[in-house]
């Protein structure tokens, strides 16, 4: 079959006019009526324009039908990527693709989720990946939608999380309309976010779209992972397919980079010979398998593991922690630590050694400074994916451990277990501080919730940085999906939509999703509550309502002190009072069960039970709790 060239505007006009002439001969009178004027006359030539261009009579309505739009083929491509969901706020730059997704694609794989803000769509995809380990798609409107999305894209980039994004555009200046279509078009759409996406492309044909979409998926999922962006030009979406022989390229995933054997052996020797090793894990366990491997390495070495950012290690494992008071690490193994400079400098000063394993070394951009400081005091710096390197490192350490050494390591392990137990009990005792206080202490709130979820298959889909990490201290985190960690770039407003995305991923597994939600974050884009209600995404949201952007209250107060001025005006710009926000009513407005505000800690348990009952029925629920600041 001979390949046809894609139709240009002129070709389209000729074809449309000729088709109109053929159909006109036997067309019923009703069909001969002039079609309603398109929304933008210059984007799709109306009959008057056609007549002017061709000198023939206006075409019939049926002549404008597009049996097989390019966007149908785009859906064919997307279906090969096994994308379960897409989040989107509708926009005219992708209207053809939108229609193809829901009708031609039958709104399955991916299923269209209506989002009230592009930032929410991308943040949902961010949260979804952190639970499910698969990318979600975000479909974004040209220029305006992409700028809305940019904050969430930056968070995903900083968190090394893949998001598969498609953005619309009216690239062809000869076809695009004046006014709104021009405002929503860009010469180089990807430039708006290029500093913080891993890769982007703007295909010029359907074949090009297929190749770039598959390549984008592959790049996004190769460590260090990151969001990718493909521009779907409106002209390519809406133009009829002319080449019916187009194929979708086969997806072959890139294997994550692994350290070479000699360097792994050198690192293993340092770790086995260390008297006080310490493993520091940040974005290390990409998958549940990564957690198992880290446990195996820690138990092989009898080394404590200091885990942060996400679930890398079971938090009640006897080796969890930093080794207790007096444990001065002499060899530190950093696994996907974003900025190891400070700890490496301190280690070097006391004669300790530092080993880094991170794929972050393999991908840096110039403008955004998320790489942190240059770690000049690292002794072995391995540019490789930590999880992919762990099997070789475990094997190398096991080879070096003699029977005598094993006995010494086991003795160390006994001491570490005792230190872990002591540290954990101290934290639990601290939870009693202010136990009956009102506003309610975050420790009490976390402690009241734990017995209600501990026998469920639960998952905490919110970050703990603003709640003093009380769940970490009181709950038993031992599964990869039980915590998804931080937002990445520290962009506020990510909390709620990321939680909805995490809960979305948990839904099909029947897990109980818990979102401890800060009030300041919720108010950036509360429409994500509606998305949860509309798409029946079960999740219990518990408000950490301290009625402020509390970190900033403290920071401004500190500045007032430094400037020798009083703190009595530090509420300006930092507090969320006068009026207080009624989150139970807000939930109700979005169609969600809401309760509160709760000020007496004795009322917490019953309220949580009622919320959990709702969530178990498959719906979201919100309980507003007035809390201590931290």
């Amino acid at each position, binding site marked *: 079959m001979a390949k046809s060239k894609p139709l240009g505007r002129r070709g389209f006009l000729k074809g449309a006019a000729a088709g109109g002439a053929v159909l006109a001969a036997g067309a019923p009178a009703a069909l001969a009526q002039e079609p309603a004027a398109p929304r933008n006359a210059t984007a799709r030539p109306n009959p008057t324009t056609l007549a002017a261009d061709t000198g023939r009579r206006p075409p019939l309505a049926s002549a404008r039908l597009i049996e097989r739009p390019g966007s149908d083929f785009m859906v064919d491509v997307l279906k090969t990527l096994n994308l379960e969901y897409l989040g989107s706020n509708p926009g005219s730059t992708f209207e053809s693709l939108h229609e193809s997704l829901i009708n031609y694609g039958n709104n399955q794989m991916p299923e269209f989720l209506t989002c009230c803000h592009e930032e929410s769509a991308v943040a949902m995809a961010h949260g979804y990946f952190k639970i499910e380990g698969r990318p979600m798609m975000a479909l974004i409107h040209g220029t305006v939608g992409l700028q809305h999305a940019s904050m969430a894209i930056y968070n995903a980039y900083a968190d090394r999380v893949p998001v598969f994004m498609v953005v619309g555009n009216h690239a062809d200046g000869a076809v695009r309309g004046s006014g709104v279509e021009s405002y929503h078009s860009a010469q180089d759409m990807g430039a708006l976010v290029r500093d913080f996406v891993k890769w982007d492309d703007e295909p010029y044909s359907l074949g090009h779209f297929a190749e770039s979409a598959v390549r984008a998926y592959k790049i996004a999922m190769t460590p260090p992972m990151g969001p990718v962006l493909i521009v779907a030009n409106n002209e390519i979406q809406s133009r009829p397919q002319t080449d019916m022989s187009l194929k979708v390229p086969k997806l072959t995933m890139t294997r994550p980079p692994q350290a070479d054997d000699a360097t792994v052996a050198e690192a293993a020797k340092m770790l086995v010979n260390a008297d006080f090793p310490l493993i520091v894990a940040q974005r290390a366990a990409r998958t549940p398998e990564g957690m198992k491997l880290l446990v195996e390495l820690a138990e092989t070495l009898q080394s404590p593991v200091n885990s942060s950012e996400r679930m890398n290690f079971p938090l009640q494992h006897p080796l969890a922690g930093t080794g207790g008071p007096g444990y001065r690490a002499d060899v530190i193994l950093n696994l996907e630590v974003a900025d190891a400079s400070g700890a490496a400098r301190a280690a070097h000063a006391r004669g300790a050694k530092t080993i880094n394993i991170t794929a972050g070394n393999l991908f840096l951009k110039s403008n955004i400074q998320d790489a942190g400081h240059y770690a000049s005091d690292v002794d072995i710096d391995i540019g490789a994916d930590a999880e992919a390197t762990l099997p070789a490192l475990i094997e190398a350490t096991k080879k070096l451990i003699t029977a005598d050494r094993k006995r010494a390591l086991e003795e160390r392990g006994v001491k570490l277990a005792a230190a872990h*137990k002591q540290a*954990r*009990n101290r934290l*639990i*005792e601290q*939870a*009693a*501080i*202010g*136990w*009956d*206080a*009102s*506003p309610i*202490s*975050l*420790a009490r709130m976390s*402690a*009241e919730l*734990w*017995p209600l979820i501990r026998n469920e298959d639960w998952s905490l889909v919110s970050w703990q940085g603003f709640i*003093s990490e009380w769940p970490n201290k*009181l709950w038993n985190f031992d599964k990869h999906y039980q915590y998804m960690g931080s937002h990445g770039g520290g962009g506020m407003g990510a909390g709620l939509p990321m939680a909805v995305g995490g809960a979305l991923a948990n839904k099909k597994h029947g897990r109980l999703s818990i979102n401890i939600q800060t009030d300041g974050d919720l108010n950036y884009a509360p429409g994500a509550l509606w998305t949860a209600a509309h798409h029946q995404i079960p999740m219990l949201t518990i408000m950490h309502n301290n009625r402020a952007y*509390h970190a900033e*209250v*403290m920071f401004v*107060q*500190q500045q*007032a*002190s*430094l400037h*020798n*001025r*009083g*703190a*009595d005006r*530090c*509420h300006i710009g930092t507090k969320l009072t006068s009026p207080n926000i009624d989150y139970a009513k807000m939930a109700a407005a979005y169609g969600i069960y809401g309760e509160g505000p709760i000020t007496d800690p004795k009322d917490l348990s019953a309220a949580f039970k009622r919320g959990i009952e709702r969530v178990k029925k498959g719906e979201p629920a919100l309980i507003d709790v007035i809390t*201590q*600041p*931290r």
Partner: protein
Amino acid sequence: MKVFAIILALVSTAAAQTGNAAAGKALYNDKFMCYTCHGYSGQNGSGARLVPMKKDQAAFIAYVRNPAQPNRMPSFSPKVMSDAQLADVYAYIKSLPDSDPDPKSVPLLRDLIK
């Protein structure tokens, strides 16, 4: 030396004043916003626990003027917080109940302790 003597005199004067707890509550929660780091009950937060208050009033005021870790606890000069106001704050903190239960007496916590 002269400065030290003046400070000593001021501290001694402050130590002699008895604060007003009700006035101190307003200062703690609103004007000085002590709660931001120490919690509304003087017990919770990123700052040190204030309840039970183990310092005497003079030592408390001296600490606010010159905290041990000024990068964490801001220092507050007499221009910003007078000794009389700090005496009120001190009286309020002293009035706060030290109501922490023994963790082993709280079922929710006792069950977690190993």
